[in-house]
Protein backbone atom coordinates (compact mmCIF):
# COMPACT_ATOMS: atom_id res chain seq x y z
CA UNK A 1 0.00 0.00 0.00
CA UNK A 2 2.80 2.39 0.60
CA UNK A 3 1.42 4.76 3.18
CA UNK A 4 -0.04 2.85 6.08
CA UNK A 5 3.40 1.45 6.93
CA UNK A 6 4.69 5.00 7.52
CA UNK A 7 1.76 5.86 9.69
CA UNK A 8 3.30 5.66 13.14
CA UNK A 9 6.91 6.52 12.51
CA UNK A 10 6.41 10.19 11.70
CA UNK A 11 4.02 11.25 14.41
CA UNK A 12 0.78 12.47 12.89
CA UNK A 13 2.05 12.62 9.33
CA UNK A 14 1.14 9.98 6.82
CA UNK A 15 2.95 9.93 3.52
CA UNK A 16 1.14 8.47 0.58
CA UNK A 17 0.70 8.69 -3.13
CA UNK A 18 -2.55 10.43 -3.97
CA UNK A 19 -3.45 7.51 -6.16
CA UNK A 20 -3.01 5.00 -3.34
CA UNK A 21 -4.95 7.16 -0.94
CA UNK A 22 -7.88 7.59 -3.29
CA UNK A 23 -7.93 3.93 -4.20
CA UNK A 24 -7.76 2.92 -0.56
CA UNK A 25 -10.59 5.27 0.37
CA UNK A 26 -12.65 4.11 -2.54
CA UNK A 27 -12.23 0.38 -1.99
CA UNK A 28 -12.87 0.63 1.72
CA UNK A 29 -16.31 2.12 1.46
CA UNK A 30 -18.00 0.64 -1.55
CA UNK A 31 -21.64 1.61 -1.42
CA UNK A 32 -23.95 -0.71 -3.20
CA UNK A 33 -27.19 0.00 -5.02
CA UNK A 34 -29.95 -1.57 -2.98
CA UNK A 35 -31.09 -3.80 -5.78
CA UNK A 36 -31.85 -7.50 -6.07
CA UNK A 37 -33.40 -9.60 -8.80
CA UNK A 38 -34.13 -13.27 -8.17
CA UNK A 39 -33.06 -16.16 -5.95
CA UNK A 40 -29.48 -14.83 -5.93
CA UNK A 41 -30.76 -11.69 -4.24
CA UNK A 42 -31.75 -13.79 -1.23
CA UNK A 43 -28.16 -14.91 -0.93
CA UNK A 44 -26.97 -11.34 -1.36
CA UNK A 45 -29.27 -10.26 1.47
CA UNK A 46 -27.87 -13.05 3.62
CA UNK A 47 -24.41 -11.67 2.86
CA UNK A 48 -25.53 -8.25 4.06
CA UNK A 49 -27.06 -9.61 7.24
CA UNK A 50 -25.26 -10.04 10.54
CA UNK A 51 -23.77 -13.50 10.03
CA UNK A 52 -21.67 -12.62 6.97
CA UNK A 53 -21.77 -8.87 7.57
CA UNK A 54 -20.99 -7.13 4.29
CA UNK A 55 -20.75 -3.93 6.30
CA UNK A 56 -17.33 -4.86 7.68
CA UNK A 57 -15.97 -4.25 4.16
CA UNK A 58 -17.73 -0.90 4.03
CA UNK A 59 -20.54 -2.15 1.87
CA UNK A 60 -23.79 -0.37 2.62
CA UNK A 61 -26.90 -0.70 0.46
CA UNK A 62 -28.03 2.70 -0.76
CA UNK A 63 -31.57 3.46 -1.83
CA UNK A 64 -30.53 5.55 -4.83
CA UNK A 65 -28.07 4.81 -7.64
CA UNK A 66 -26.84 8.39 -7.24
CA UNK A 67 -25.25 7.43 -3.90
CA UNK A 68 -23.71 4.21 -5.06
CA UNK A 69 -20.29 3.03 -6.15
CA UNK A 70 -21.22 -0.38 -7.40
CA UNK A 71 -24.12 -2.60 -8.23
CA UNK A 72 -24.51 -6.34 -7.76
CA UNK A 73 -26.56 -7.88 -10.55
CA UNK A 74 -27.95 -10.61 -8.32
CA UNK A 75 -30.17 -12.85 -10.37
CA UNK A 76 -32.08 -13.45 -13.56
CA UNK A 77 -32.07 -10.48 -15.89
CA UNK A 78 -35.17 -10.49 -18.05
CA UNK A 79 -35.16 -8.48 -21.22
CA UNK A 80 -37.71 -6.17 -19.65
CA UNK A 81 -35.45 -5.64 -16.64
CA UNK A 82 -32.31 -5.23 -18.76
CA UNK A 83 -33.48 -1.90 -20.10
CA UNK A 84 -34.09 -0.72 -16.53
CA UNK A 85 -30.72 -1.98 -15.31
CA UNK A 86 -29.06 -0.05 -18.09
CA UNK A 87 -30.79 3.09 -16.90
CA UNK A 88 -29.81 2.40 -13.26
CA UNK A 89 -26.22 1.96 -14.36
CA UNK A 90 -26.26 5.20 -16.30
CA UNK A 91 -27.64 7.00 -13.25
CA UNK A 92 -24.72 5.93 -11.06
CA UNK A 93 -21.90 8.47 -10.74
CA UNK A 94 -18.42 7.54 -11.97
CA UNK A 95 -16.33 5.67 -10.97
CA UNK A 96 -18.73 2.74 -10.88
CA UNK A 97 -18.30 -1.00 -10.77
CA UNK A 98 -20.40 -4.06 -11.43
CA UNK A 99 -20.41 -7.49 -9.85
CA UNK A 100 -22.33 -10.06 -11.83
CA UNK A 101 -23.62 -12.59 -9.31
CA UNK A 102 -24.71 -16.08 -10.28
CA UNK A 103 -25.11 -18.04 -13.48
CA UNK A 104 -28.16 -16.09 -14.61
CA UNK A 105 -26.42 -12.73 -14.63
CA UNK A 106 -23.24 -14.30 -16.03
CA UNK A 107 -24.70 -16.15 -18.99
CA UNK A 108 -28.44 -16.78 -18.62
CA UNK A 109 -28.05 -19.70 -16.19
CA UNK A 110 -30.81 -22.32 -16.32
CA UNK A 111 -32.64 -20.16 -18.87
CA UNK A 112 -29.81 -20.13 -21.38
CA UNK A 113 -31.70 -22.11 -24.02
CA UNK A 114 -35.45 -21.85 -23.49
CA UNK A 115 -35.62 -18.57 -21.64
CA UNK A 116 -37.38 -16.52 -24.29
CA UNK A 117 -37.54 -13.64 -21.85
CA UNK A 118 -34.04 -13.78 -20.33
CA UNK A 119 -30.95 -11.80 -21.29
CA UNK A 120 -28.11 -14.30 -21.65
CA UNK A 121 -25.56 -12.41 -19.61
CA UNK A 122 -25.70 -8.90 -18.21
CA UNK A 123 -22.39 -8.12 -19.96
CA UNK A 124 -24.41 -7.76 -23.15
CA UNK A 125 -25.75 -4.53 -21.73
CA UNK A 126 -23.27 -3.12 -19.19
CA UNK A 127 -19.55 -3.80 -18.55
CA UNK A 128 -18.89 -6.30 -15.74
CA UNK A 129 -15.87 -6.11 -13.41
CA UNK A 130 -16.21 -9.34 -11.44
CA UNK A 131 -18.15 -12.50 -12.27
CA UNK A 132 -19.19 -14.67 -9.33
CA UNK A 133 -20.15 -18.18 -10.48
CA UNK A 134 -22.75 -20.33 -8.76
CA UNK A 135 -26.47 -20.98 -8.68
CA UNK A 136 -26.74 -19.30 -6.30
CA UNK A 137 -23.22 -18.42 -5.12
CA UNK A 138 -22.81 -18.84 -1.38
CA UNK A 139 -22.20 -15.68 0.64
CA UNK A 140 -18.54 -16.65 0.89
CA UNK A 141 -18.31 -16.59 -2.90
CA UNK A 142 -19.89 -13.15 -3.06
CA UNK A 143 -17.47 -11.94 -0.38
CA UNK A 144 -14.61 -13.28 -2.47
CA UNK A 145 -16.05 -11.45 -5.46
CA UNK A 146 -16.04 -8.25 -3.44
CA UNK A 147 -12.42 -8.82 -2.39
CA UNK A 148 -11.53 -9.32 -6.06
CA UNK A 149 -13.22 -6.03 -6.87
CA UNK A 150 -11.30 -4.31 -4.07
CA UNK A 151 -8.09 -5.77 -5.47
CA UNK A 152 -8.96 -4.35 -8.85
CA UNK A 153 -9.62 -0.91 -7.42
CA UNK A 154 -6.39 -1.00 -5.37
CA UNK A 155 -4.38 -1.16 -8.57
CA UNK A 156 -6.25 1.47 -10.47
CA UNK A 157 -4.37 4.43 -11.82
CA UNK A 158 -5.54 8.00 -12.16
CA UNK A 159 -3.60 8.50 -15.39
CA UNK A 160 -3.99 5.14 -17.06
CA UNK A 161 -7.43 4.25 -18.25
CA UNK A 162 -8.48 0.91 -16.84
CA UNK A 163 -12.12 0.34 -17.66
Amino acid at each position, binding site marked *: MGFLDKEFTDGNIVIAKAEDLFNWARLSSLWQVSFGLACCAIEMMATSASHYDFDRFGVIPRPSPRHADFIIISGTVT*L*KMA*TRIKRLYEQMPDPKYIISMGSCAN*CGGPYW*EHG*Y*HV*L*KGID*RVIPVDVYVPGCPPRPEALLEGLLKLQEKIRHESMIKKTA
Partner: protein
Amino acid sequence: MKKAEEIFQLLKDNFPASNLELKTDQPTEAIIIASPLEIDKICFFLHDAPELLFDDLMNLSGVDEPKAGLLAVYYHLGSTKIKHKITLKVSTDRNKPEVSTLTEVWKSADWHEREAYDLLGIIFLNHPDLRRILMPYDWDAGYPLRKDYENPEFYQGMKVPY
Protein backbone atom coordinates in the same frame (compact mmCIF):
# COMPACT_ATOMS: atom_id res chain seq x y z
CA MET B 1 -71.61 -29.63 -1.52
CA LYS B 2 -72.45 -30.52 -5.11
CA LYS B 3 -70.86 -33.12 -7.36
CA ALA B 4 -69.78 -32.27 -10.89
CA GLU B 5 -72.77 -34.17 -12.31
CA GLU B 6 -75.19 -32.13 -10.21
CA ILE B 7 -73.56 -28.86 -11.18
CA PHE B 8 -73.67 -29.91 -14.80
CA GLN B 9 -77.36 -30.75 -14.52
CA LEU B 10 -78.08 -27.36 -12.97
CA LEU B 11 -76.30 -25.65 -15.85
CA LYS B 12 -78.19 -27.75 -18.39
CA ASP B 13 -81.50 -26.77 -16.82
CA ASN B 14 -80.63 -23.08 -16.72
CA PHE B 15 -78.95 -22.82 -20.11
CA PRO B 16 -80.98 -25.15 -22.33
CA ALA B 17 -79.80 -23.45 -25.52
CA SER B 18 -76.12 -23.73 -24.67
CA ASN B 19 -73.74 -26.32 -25.93
CA LEU B 20 -72.48 -27.93 -22.74
CA GLU B 21 -70.58 -31.11 -22.23
CA LEU B 22 -69.34 -33.00 -19.16
CA LYS B 23 -66.09 -34.93 -19.27
CA THR B 24 -65.60 -37.33 -16.39
CA ASP B 25 -62.94 -39.64 -17.85
CA GLN B 26 -60.23 -37.44 -16.35
CA PRO B 27 -57.48 -38.43 -13.98
CA THR B 28 -58.33 -35.25 -12.03
CA GLU B 29 -61.66 -33.52 -11.47
CA ALA B 30 -64.45 -33.62 -14.03
CA ILE B 31 -64.45 -30.86 -16.62
CA ILE B 32 -67.43 -28.98 -17.99
CA ILE B 33 -66.85 -27.78 -21.53
CA ALA B 34 -68.66 -24.59 -22.49
CA SER B 35 -68.68 -22.21 -25.38
CA PRO B 36 -66.21 -19.31 -25.24
CA LEU B 37 -68.70 -16.53 -25.85
CA GLU B 38 -71.15 -17.75 -23.21
CA ILE B 39 -68.69 -18.42 -20.44
CA ASP B 40 -69.41 -15.07 -18.77
CA LYS B 41 -73.15 -15.80 -18.49
CA ILE B 42 -72.47 -19.29 -17.15
CA CYS B 43 -69.99 -17.98 -14.63
CA PHE B 44 -72.37 -15.28 -13.42
CA PHE B 45 -74.82 -18.07 -12.70
CA LEU B 46 -72.22 -20.24 -10.97
CA HIS B 47 -71.19 -17.24 -8.90
CA ASP B 48 -74.68 -16.13 -7.86
CA ALA B 49 -76.87 -19.24 -7.62
CA PRO B 50 -77.45 -19.82 -3.88
CA GLU B 51 -76.86 -23.56 -4.15
CA LEU B 52 -73.52 -23.06 -5.97
CA LEU B 53 -71.89 -19.80 -4.77
CA PHE B 54 -68.60 -20.16 -6.63
CA ASP B 55 -66.99 -17.09 -5.14
CA ASP B 56 -63.39 -18.03 -5.89
CA LEU B 57 -61.69 -18.18 -9.27
CA MET B 58 -58.77 -20.27 -8.10
CA ASN B 59 -56.95 -20.36 -11.42
CA LEU B 60 -57.33 -19.39 -15.02
CA SER B 61 -54.84 -20.72 -17.55
CA GLY B 62 -54.49 -20.83 -21.28
CA VAL B 63 -53.37 -23.92 -23.18
CA ASP B 64 -52.20 -24.23 -26.77
CA GLU B 65 -53.51 -27.26 -28.67
CA PRO B 66 -51.95 -26.82 -32.12
CA LYS B 67 -52.91 -30.30 -33.40
CA ALA B 68 -56.56 -29.51 -32.92
CA GLY B 69 -56.02 -25.92 -34.09
CA LEU B 70 -57.38 -24.65 -30.80
CA LEU B 71 -56.50 -22.41 -27.93
CA ALA B 72 -58.17 -23.43 -24.71
CA VAL B 73 -58.81 -21.70 -21.41
CA TYR B 74 -59.28 -23.67 -18.20
CA TYR B 75 -61.07 -22.18 -15.22
CA HIS B 76 -60.74 -23.72 -11.77
CA LEU B 77 -63.54 -22.53 -9.57
CA GLY B 78 -64.07 -23.03 -5.88
CA SER B 79 -66.59 -22.02 -3.29
CA THR B 80 -65.29 -20.92 0.08
CA LYS B 81 -68.82 -21.17 1.51
CA ILE B 82 -69.98 -24.55 0.19
CA LYS B 83 -66.49 -25.99 -0.31
CA HIS B 84 -67.03 -27.60 -3.67
CA LYS B 85 -64.94 -27.23 -6.80
CA ILE B 86 -65.41 -27.44 -10.53
CA THR B 87 -63.28 -27.06 -13.64
CA LEU B 88 -64.51 -25.37 -16.80
CA LYS B 89 -62.95 -25.39 -20.22
CA VAL B 90 -63.56 -23.36 -23.35
CA SER B 91 -61.81 -23.81 -26.70
CA THR B 92 -61.51 -21.27 -29.46
CA ASP B 93 -60.10 -21.14 -32.94
CA ARG B 94 -56.35 -20.66 -32.96
CA ASN B 95 -56.59 -18.06 -35.72
CA LYS B 96 -59.27 -15.99 -34.02
CA PRO B 97 -59.07 -16.80 -30.32
CA GLU B 98 -61.86 -14.86 -28.66
CA VAL B 99 -63.26 -15.56 -25.21
CA SER B 100 -65.59 -13.45 -23.11
CA THR B 101 -63.93 -11.86 -20.13
CA LEU B 102 -64.78 -12.86 -16.57
CA THR B 103 -63.53 -9.66 -14.96
CA GLU B 104 -67.11 -8.67 -14.20
CA VAL B 105 -67.66 -11.89 -12.28
CA TRP B 106 -64.37 -12.19 -10.43
CA LYS B 107 -61.95 -9.25 -10.21
CA SER B 108 -59.09 -11.73 -9.97
CA ALA B 109 -59.71 -12.76 -13.57
CA ASP B 110 -58.21 -9.47 -14.73
CA TRP B 111 -54.50 -10.29 -14.42
CA HIS B 112 -54.98 -13.98 -15.19
CA GLU B 113 -56.60 -13.06 -18.47
CA ARG B 114 -53.85 -10.58 -19.20
CA GLU B 115 -51.35 -13.36 -18.66
CA ALA B 116 -53.18 -15.71 -21.02
CA TYR B 117 -53.29 -12.89 -23.53
CA ASP B 118 -49.62 -12.07 -23.05
CA LEU B 119 -48.31 -15.61 -23.40
CA LEU B 120 -50.82 -17.22 -25.76
CA GLY B 121 -52.56 -14.35 -27.50
CA ILE B 122 -56.07 -15.20 -26.38
CA ILE B 123 -58.30 -12.14 -26.81
CA PHE B 124 -60.69 -11.61 -23.91
CA LEU B 125 -63.60 -9.62 -25.25
CA ASN B 126 -64.63 -6.59 -23.16
CA HIS B 127 -61.63 -6.91 -20.87
CA PRO B 128 -61.09 -3.45 -19.31
CA ASP B 129 -57.31 -3.39 -19.72
CA LEU B 130 -56.00 -6.08 -22.06
CA ARG B 131 -52.27 -5.25 -22.10
CA ARG B 132 -49.24 -7.47 -21.82
CA ILE B 133 -48.42 -8.21 -18.22
CA LEU B 134 -45.14 -10.18 -18.14
CA MET B 135 -43.42 -9.53 -21.44
CA PRO B 136 -42.34 -5.96 -22.29
CA TYR B 137 -45.19 -3.75 -23.48
CA ASP B 138 -43.49 -3.28 -26.84
CA TRP B 139 -42.86 -7.01 -27.41
CA ASP B 140 -43.86 -7.57 -31.02
CA ALA B 141 -42.44 -11.05 -31.65
CA GLY B 142 -45.65 -12.88 -30.80
CA TYR B 143 -46.86 -15.03 -27.94
CA PRO B 144 -44.09 -17.08 -26.29
CA LEU B 145 -46.10 -20.07 -25.03
CA ARG B 146 -47.56 -20.93 -28.42
CA LYS B 147 -45.97 -24.15 -29.64
CA ASP B 148 -44.91 -22.62 -32.96
CA TYR B 149 -43.36 -19.53 -31.37
CA GLU B 150 -39.94 -18.41 -32.61
CA ASN B 151 -37.84 -16.16 -30.44
CA PRO B 152 -36.60 -13.00 -32.17
CA GLU B 153 -32.91 -12.44 -32.82
CA PHE B 154 -32.86 -9.03 -31.12
CA TYR B 155 -34.94 -7.03 -28.67
CA GLN B 156 -34.13 -3.32 -28.40
CA GLY B 157 -30.63 -3.96 -29.69
CA MET B 158 -29.98 -6.79 -27.20
CA LYS B 159 -29.22 -10.20 -28.64
CA VAL B 160 -31.81 -12.67 -27.40
CA PRO B 161 -30.49 -16.19 -28.24
CA TYR B 162 -27.59 -17.57 -26.23
